[in-house]
């Protein structure tokens, strides 16, 4: 239960005003508040003399518990010094063997026994650090547009572009692994076209490949 007293009544309780100084309509409230205050036992609280001793006895009993001591020994951090005495060649041999195992495992993970195709290529791409890159080509009249490059093993069925309306723009967004990639668009399944908005290099077969660099912050023409 709580009572919200008028501010003037609160000043009365604080001793700043007397009952006579309250407006007449507030005096009953003031008298009730004073009666309530007078009814409270204002004698100082004294703690029993034996309380300290009881509390300390309980603390000592807990501290002396063997279970707790064992738990503390198991969990408390401590300094441990280990000394190994080895011949240098064993370290080199061990390190090289470990490196060989790591490289073999990495090779195996990076090179599946069969070439990835279609959706498999996409899944593999997604397993690396990759960035979404939007590819756009203006190809009015095209019936099919795809993009292929080093990021999808030059698979012309892995990434099809969708027409963006009827204005001849084709677009798709792909997760491309971080790194530098060469790519080209394939129009109607047989015409390889470099990206007119990207730098291009000789592909070694008499055509041009576009170049895109994917860095952690996004794609750059690098």
């Amino acid at each position, binding site marked *: 239960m709580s009572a919200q007293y008028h501010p003037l009544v609160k000043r009365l309780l604080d001793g700043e005003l007397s009952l006579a100084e309250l407006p007449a309509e507030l005096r009953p409230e003031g008298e009730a508040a004073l009666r309530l205050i007078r009814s409270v036992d204002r004698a100082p609280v004294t703690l029993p003399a034996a309380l300290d001793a009881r509390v300390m006895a309980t603390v000592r009993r807990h501290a002396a518990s063997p279970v707790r001591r064992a738990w503390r020994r198991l969990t408390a951090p401590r300094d441990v010094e280990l000394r190994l005495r080895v011949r240098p060649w064993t370290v080199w041999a061990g390190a*090289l063997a470990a490196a060989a195992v790591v*490289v073999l495992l990495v090779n195996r993970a990076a090179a599946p026994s069969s070439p990835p195709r279609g959706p498999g290529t996409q899944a593999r791409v997604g397993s690396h650090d990759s960035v979404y890159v939007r590819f756009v080509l203006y190809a009015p009249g095209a019936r099919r547009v795809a993009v292929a490059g*080093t990021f999808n093993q*030059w698979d012309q069925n892995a990434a099809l572009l969708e027409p963006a309306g009827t204005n001849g723009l084709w677009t798709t967004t792909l997760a491309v692994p971080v790194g530098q990639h060469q790519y080209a668009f394939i129009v109607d399944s047989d015409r390889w076209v470099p990206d007119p908005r990207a730098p291009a290099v000789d592909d070694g*077969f008499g055509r041009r490949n576009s*170049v895109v660099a994917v860095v952690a912050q996004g794609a750059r023409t690098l």
Partner: protein
Amino acid sequence: MTALRSALLAAVSATIPLVLAGQGDVTARLDGRVPAEVMRAVHDIAAATAARGLPVEPLIDKAIEGGAKRVPADRVIAAVRALANRLDEARRALHDGGIETPGADVVEGGAYALSAGLGPRQTSELVRISRPPYDPATSLRVAATLAALGVPPKQTLDLMESMIAAGRSPSDLLDLPSAVQTSVAQGATPTQAANGLARGVVHAPGQAPDFVPPGQAKPHPHKP
């Protein structure tokens, strides 16, 4: 000496399975993607390339690309062989630039630079000036991209040198190709764009390069 012999033995033992695994990887990755004669030829070229300590991944990629583009087998093999030679040439250029044992990334960057039109000497010079905090592989790729955008090799090298000499951050180098593209889109030739960027670096060291192509500048305000 005993320890040294043991270490060498361990190194050789560790290397043999790696080379064998790499060769098996070439065959597996090309299987079904290129004709059998291409697969055999690329396998041999890759083995020889790996034995010289050069990366084989670009060779595999090139063969797969040729297969996807339905390029005749002899031309695919020729392209892969040419790329292997370029990797060799790149390594020599890197060596001349001061890198004794370049990693795969730098070698590939060097080959990319040579493919884009930079000469071996320019490649070496670029590597020589790309000391930390600059990364030679990144510098090579930036320069190659500038060349691919049509910036002549000499202007490419001049621009890179001016950026590095002015102490621009490595990430500023990465922004150069897009800055050139922007200028070209505004009407400048690639040469004008590169020269303008280089002038901007010289006149305002420590700031991002900014270039306005001829005829694109805002008129100076007239005093009343």
